């Protein structure tokens, strides 16, 4: 096969096909740069998800503990404090210890492990003496004229009972505490109240 002089210069000046090494290096570099914020967002999302999971677990645990405590008959926990020793458990929690034996009570629950959350919990029961503002009327006057309330001998509102009534209304406070390796000590507390009600 012979190469004619007319074909030789054409093959030397054929336009380049494909990508040059420089183009590929620049393209890969650009893509790598584009990935940087995505990696950042992914990292933040993992951290955020873990934080949310911690919060949700703590909320559920506090709710479980508080609802369990509220199911006990009124004053049962404080009156048995320091006594023969209870046999109940709180939501599968471990045994607890009393801090005080009269009036206000603190129960230390745990350590507890719920999912990946390792925590301790505390239940505080505090007596809040009650008094109400009650508008008083005169039953005899009401009986004599039952159609006109203004003639029922209303004597204005009084604070009753005259002395605040203890041991009828308790505040329940549950505090869940755990340690976060990145953010340090964390806690979540939940409060409710329970009254001495007649069935």
């Amino acid at each position, binding site marked *: 096969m012979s190469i004619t002089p007319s074909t030789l210069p054409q093959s030397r000046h054929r336009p380049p096909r494909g990508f040059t090494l420089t183009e590929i290096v620049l*393209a890969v570099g650009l893509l790598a740069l584009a990935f940087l914020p995505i990696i950042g967002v992914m990292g933040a999302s993992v951290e955020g998800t873990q934080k*949310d999971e911690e*919060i949700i677990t703590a909320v559920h645990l506090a709710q479980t503990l508080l609802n369990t405590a509220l199911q006990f008959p009124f004053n049962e926990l404080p009156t048995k404090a320091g006594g023969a020793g209870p046999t109940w458990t709180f939501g599968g929690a471990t045994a607890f210890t009393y801090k005080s034996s009269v009036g206000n009570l603190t129960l230390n629950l745990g350590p507890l492990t719920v999912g990946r959350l390792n925590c301790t919990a505390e239940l505080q029961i505090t007596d809040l003496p009650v008094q109400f503002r*009650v508008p008083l009327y005169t039953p005899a006057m009401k009986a004599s004229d039952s159609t006109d309330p*203004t003639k029922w001998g209303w004597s204005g509102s009084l604070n009753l009972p005259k002395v605040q009534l203890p041991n009828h209304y308790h505040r329940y406070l549950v505090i869940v505490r755990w340690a976060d390796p990145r953010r340090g000590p964390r806690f979540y507390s939940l409060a409710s109240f329970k009254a001495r009600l007649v069935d």
Partner: protein
Amino acid sequence: MNKRGTALVMALIFSVLLLQMAIAYSGMLRASKPQTMQLEEAAKYDLLAQGLIDKAILKFQLYPGEFYAAWQALKLGHPEYLTEYVLNDPNLRLPDFDLASSTFTGQKISVAIASMALLTDSHWNQEALRIAANVSYVTQTGKNVDKTIVKIISVKREVVK
């Protein structure tokens, strides 16, 4: 056709697409955060309201005659006595309660008994008492939230002989 620079153009297009994905994902994360906080806030205010409703029931059980008289007065066109019994009692309000707090939220929640009403009119028989509590607080994002928690209990009037 000259194909110089095509790889760069393609890389730029991919970069823009990836950035858009990142922005969309970040938006999704921001949207999921308030949901966790709503769950946490709901647990707080619901338990607080239930506790205050318990106190209203205690008041009713301690002073039922006054409630029934005030209720009867309301039926006869005089709501002021029931207002005095329910709304004007500062003991049936929890303003700016902040004991239920945490390291991630610290908002104060206000709870107040909003109404006590008999749902039935069968005097001296089984009746239903409806107690409603209003809850209000400001979320971390600055949004005002108002909720109403309702509890209905059965009560029975008895004649003391």
